[in-house]
């Protein structure tokens, strides 16, 4: 497939936003059971504002994936109507839901609207806990919807695997917790070790999951062949004409147009940028070194852009069988 930058930025940016929100809410839920020190409301406000900013950035990138940006106003509302069958439609519902709950979480913390809705005096702030919990559930729904957009296309065999969904969740979680570690270095230094260690754990889990999908994809046996594509059983078939002279949508959309060496180098670039370098920097920043943690996030995010590019480019669409000489 031809990697589209709007989708690369959309999926990586909302991944960071979702992961960061999970990290912020994890702190609040841990602090209610006294596993972590409770923070000032400004910690949650700024944290969820930062997460929301990444979501808005992703939404902005998504607008450029539409045929015309104006469709965002005139037609995109129809995108919520097909939720029964389309994972893209489900994503279009989950995305504003997540953003709305993040916004509510931020606003309720900002104004300190913490009603004790369950009537218990032991823990304060149940309302924000409930909103945060609903937000976290919505975050997971959004992760699954985004991953399933790709995993549900059964003949794109590189994507048609549950590992695709796990990768989206783990990469979002890893980059979000890395950003949370960097954020806490400025806002709440006592949380750095907590966030950095979780960021390392999720990054390692993402490494395992992505390595498994790379391993799987390297051994794919394609179901379709040129023989099944045109219905001729002969083993020697050569395409002599593609039916056009200068290329078409089919030759532009489904081919990345890069060499195998280029593809392979992108793979190694993302493997280095997403995993070992951030892990090293997180470890260095564990004692509260903000520079190392900011750098860890920046490098990991850059690596995720390469990872997402590779994810798209590696997928081999069966329609390419009809374009043997591109």
């Amino acid at each position: 497939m031809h990697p589209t930058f709007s989708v690369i930025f959309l999926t990586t940016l909302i991944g960071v936003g979702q992961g960061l929100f999970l990290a912020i809410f994890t702190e609040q839920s841990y602090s209610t059971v006294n596993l972590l020190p409770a923070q000032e409301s400004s910690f949650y406000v700024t944290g969820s504002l930062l997460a929301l900013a990444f979501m808005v950035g992703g939404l902005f990138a998504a607008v450029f994936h539409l045929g015309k940006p104006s469709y965002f106003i005139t037609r995109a509302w129809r995108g919520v109507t097909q939720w029964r069958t389309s994972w893209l439609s489900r994503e279009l519902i989950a995305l504003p839901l997540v953003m709305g709950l993040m916004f509510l979480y931020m606003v309720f913390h900002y104004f300190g609207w913490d009603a004790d809705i369950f009537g218990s005096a032991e823990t304060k702030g149940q309302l924000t806990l409930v909103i945060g919990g609903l937000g976290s559930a919505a975050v997971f729904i959004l992760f699954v919807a985004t991953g399933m957009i790709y995993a549900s296309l059964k003949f794109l065999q590189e994507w048609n695997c549950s590992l695709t969904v796990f990768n989206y969740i783990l990469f979002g979680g890893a980059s979000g917790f890395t950003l949370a570690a960097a954020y806490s270095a400025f806002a709440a230094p006592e949380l750095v070790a907590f966030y950095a260690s979780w960021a390392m754990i999720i990054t390692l889990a993402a490494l395992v999951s992505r390595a498994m999908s790379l391993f799987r994809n390297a051994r794919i046996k394609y179901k379709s062949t040129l023989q099944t594509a045109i219905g001729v059983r002969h083993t020697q078939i050569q395409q002599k004409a593609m039916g056009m002279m200068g290329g078409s949508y089919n030759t532009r959309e489904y081919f990345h147009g890069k060499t195998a060496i280029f593809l392979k180098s992108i793979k190694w670039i993302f493997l280095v940028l997403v995993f070992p370098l951030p892990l090293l920097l997180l470890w260095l920043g564990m004692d509260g070194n903000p520079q190392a943690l900011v750098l860890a996030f920046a490098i990991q995010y850059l690596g995720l852009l390469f990872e997402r590019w590779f994810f798209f480019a590696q997928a081999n669409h069966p329609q390419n069988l009809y374009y043997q000489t591109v």
Partner: protein
Amino acid sequence: MSQLALVIDLNVCVGCHACVTSCKQWNTSGDAGPMFDDNPYDKDPTGTFFNRVQTYEIGQFPRTETLHFPKSCLHCEDAPCVPVCPTGASFKREDDGIVLVDYDKCIGCKYCSWACPYGAREFDKHQKVMKKCTLCVDRIYDESLPESMRKPACVLACPTSARLFGDVHDPDSEVSVTIREQGGYQLMPEWGTKPSNHYLPRRKTKMHIHEDELVRADNPLKKEDIRHEISDDVTLDDWMM
């Protein structure tokens, strides 16, 4: 419930592209407006087409065969492009099984084209919507046309009658009979999309020629005999030589 479809006879397709040009002509002049065509007479011509003819060479020289292979939307019975559409712009008609795009609802996200294993959909980069073969839905129901003309443009244009059009759910229709009798098959059956369009395979044609067919017995000049031994009988031919 009927399912309209095309049956394409690969045995007689000569790859003339008449179906491609007539399709472009008919559909670019229709209600939906023109299908873009950049640099048509220049370097790198490109545009939206609903139908393409590709050419393959099968076998190893000198035993090769040329296969001309027209491909358009196959109007799958279980069309994978329809459920993935987030806006409902892509749909399959209940009554005749034609898969269409509502250009006024399409947001151009291209997801349906990713979901089609055949590459049958093309994005119109000027109108910014997804387009595909409509089976000339505006023409096959047009009662102002004489009944013999209510067929897709490609079918009418084909000089060798390689394209048949009809209801593949009606067991007595011309297309169903042809599919049954000539071994009509579907493309990429492994994905379970159940394409409605069928292809008829190339057939091996054998011909036995007997020696007496090579010699024209009633040829007064007996040209074929010249290089053989000359007959003792004096004939008119001998005299002429």
